[in-house]
């Protein structure tokens, strides 16, 4: 099905996506940042802050054999809980009714990779269900922040299953994943006070999200962590 089987070399990318400026939306990028800070990975394993690039991520994922994605995911569990999904468990999409908050979301990226005959042989998502999205200019909520070590462990377990040597960082310089001004410590220490920064969402927009999450909460089953 894919060109990957013909490619002798592995090419692994660890990707964090989401918007650092929107509370728990920053989860994916913060995970990859923490991975680069605290863990030692072989240089050929790419660590990437994918931001909210949408379809523009496709060229960066072409020719990969393994992708480990950290992201905020509207899954069925409680807000703040983790989920792991692999390959076919990640909805191969849509039929007209799937969408992310972005029109071009991760599902479209996966479909595009498949159309290009470049779907990675292994694709794993480690996600957290966000608690708060509306706090523009905010940072991770305490509950989601507390899930980062667990999410990293799930990701590291997956990398090890793929044959990647992962150790605690010692000796090698830390990986530069996020632009220094946006790294979590610096970002949070420079935040304006809540009464200065208007941390509001669009009520209608948030209602759509809440309704979608309520619908999800009523269902059971599905890929779980």
């Amino acid at each position, binding site marked *: 099905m894919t060109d990957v089987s013909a490619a002798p070399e592995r090419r692994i990318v660890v990707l964090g996506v989401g918007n650092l*400026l929107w509370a728990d939306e920053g989860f994916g990028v913060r995970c990859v940042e923490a991975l680069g800070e605290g863990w030692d990975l072989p240089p050929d394993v790419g660590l990437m802050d*994918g931001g909210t690039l*949408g379809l*523009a991520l496709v060229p960066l994922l072409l*020719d990969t054999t393994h992708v480990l994605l950290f992201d905020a995911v509207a899954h069925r569990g409680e807000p703040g809980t983790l989920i792991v999904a692999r390959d076919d468990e990640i909805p191969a999409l849509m039929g007209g009714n799937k969408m992310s908050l972005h029109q071009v979301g*991760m599902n479209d990226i996966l479909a595009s990779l498949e159309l290009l005959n470049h779907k990675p042989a292994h694709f794993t998502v480690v996600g957290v269900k966000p608690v708060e999205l509306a706090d523009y200019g905010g940072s991770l909520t305490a509950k989601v922040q507390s899930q980062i070590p667990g999410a990293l462990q799930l990701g590291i377990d997956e990398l090890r299953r793929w044959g990647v040597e992962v150790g605690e960082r010692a000796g090698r310089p830390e990986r530069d994943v996020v632009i220094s001004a946006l790294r979590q410590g610096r970002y949070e220490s420079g935040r304006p006070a809540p009464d200065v920064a208007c941390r509001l969402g669009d009520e209608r927009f948030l209602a759509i999200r809440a309704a979608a999450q309520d619908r999800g909460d009523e269902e059971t089953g599905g890929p779980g962590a």
Partner: protein
Amino acid sequence: MSIATPNGFQLDNSGKRVVVDPITRIEGHLRIEVNVDANNVIRNAVSTGTMWRGLEVILRGRDPRDAWAFVQRICGVCTGVHALASVRAVENALKIEIPENANTIRNIMHLTLYSQDHLVHFYHLHALDWVDVVSALSADPKATSELAQSISSWPLSSPGYFRDLQNRLKKFVESGQLGPFRNGYWGHPAYKLPPEANLMAVAHYLEALDFQKEIVKIQTIFGGRNPHPNWLVGGVPSPINLNATGAVGAVNMERLNLVGSIIDRTIEFIDNVYIPDLIAIAGFYKDWAAIGGGLSSKYLMSYGDLPKSANDYSAGNLMMPRGAIVDGNLGEVQDIDLDALDQVQEFVTHSWYKYGDEQQGLHPYEGETVPNFDIGGAKGTKTRVEAFDESAKYSWVKSPRWKGHAMEVGPLARYVIGYVKGIPEFKEPTDMVLAKLGGVPVTALFSTLGRTAARGLECSWAAHKLKDEFNKLIANIKAGDTATANMDNFEPSTWAKSARGHGFVEAPRGSLCHWIDIEDKKIKNYQCVVPTTWNASPRDPAGKIGAYEAALLDTPMHDPEQPLEILRTIHSFDPCLACATHVLDMEGNEVTSVQVR
């Protein structure tokens, strides 16, 4: 009941109301409402940005030298343009001059973005308004090959190539997936291409996606990282060391050679795939040369960009033309002063913000961003609006005006300004395309098709300019100048107690400017007026409508339930509404809807 707007349009909201929310294949969130008459012709249009973006507010108190990193996150895709506007604004405020190489490298990164962004827009966001993917499944691969070879020498054109691709596409669609092709009005009678042209275009859709992996390497080489490159107040962050071998970070000869070869391939792809496709597709849609003009025949603006030499941002030094056309007077291109308090102003009479006096506009230096989500007499509730009340507030987008005029910005504005200024590199290719389409008059530019054609021409222009700038960089380096940054005034101890400045950029989708106010070494106020704010703006207190609303008027719709015509015109502007969030959805909530009332 019909009313006349001060900028020359007739609005009538008595007919059926059609609500499209959200508009798909764009970045961010846009809702369009129109009223159609008994013949399904659009007689009123209402453009609503449905997401709050408060980036300006969260920059308060930050280090001005870091602002570029934050503004890169305003938008998912156009990260580079915001970073560039930001470093220029800080340099303008603090009177920091940059070295020639830094200017040239910024031009190279900017032109690379143009080449990539226009390509992505045409194939991945706009083409599907003209190309019917499902029809491609019934194409004859041999005839497709003949068609492709008749319009271009591009080598990927054999019957076998198109057959393989068609099989892959069939398998994909038969597996129940539509992926990026969902939300299409496939089979809509307004699709006019024969199946073979559809298959050829789908093939190029995929090739363009694949080709981007080459283009982005240029940003990585000069920006030190991708997808969010590094920027620097005072220059560019990448040192140049021609003799370095394999050194981390430095731009060496090996890397420059790679850049050169990517540029050559980019030119080849654009001139042998994009442009022939554009002309071939346009040939089937000549009626769209008379639809969707909106403000474009009367009110156009470009700040200009790409300084030939460093630190001179005056009109005469900019390779991309600068100026404003008002009241349809094509004989006069007026200059723009971005510091003048009475030129660029933003109004919030119809936007969800609060000003002390809502009849007045504010220059961005005096700009305020205080939300006020009041929907006036809209039908429905605040969380479920059935139809907005355009006589009240109805958008998160403000209404920017230039000397009181609503303006259209983007490639069409730049091409018309370049054309009427008589600049050959804009005029000649435009005349060539008009001739190739069978001698359509120059007024055909003022249309949805004209907007799409101008973007294609500009993409080719940018790729060739990219090569020129690259050659300039090499020549300057070989002459012994390797400076890339001026750190003289980088330290805050050298700054005045208060300073303010602006940084303008012509982004691929139009005019962008950031205004910064620095006090005690911190950001006191930061305001961005982005291209889509100009084009998607709601009405102003005088009742003048913005570019999207104007362009939708008088468009005949085949079926209001399937608003393909609205997508065509809105997509021709390349909308980008400050996208902010992104969540992978495992539930499949249907949000896209079309309501006809």
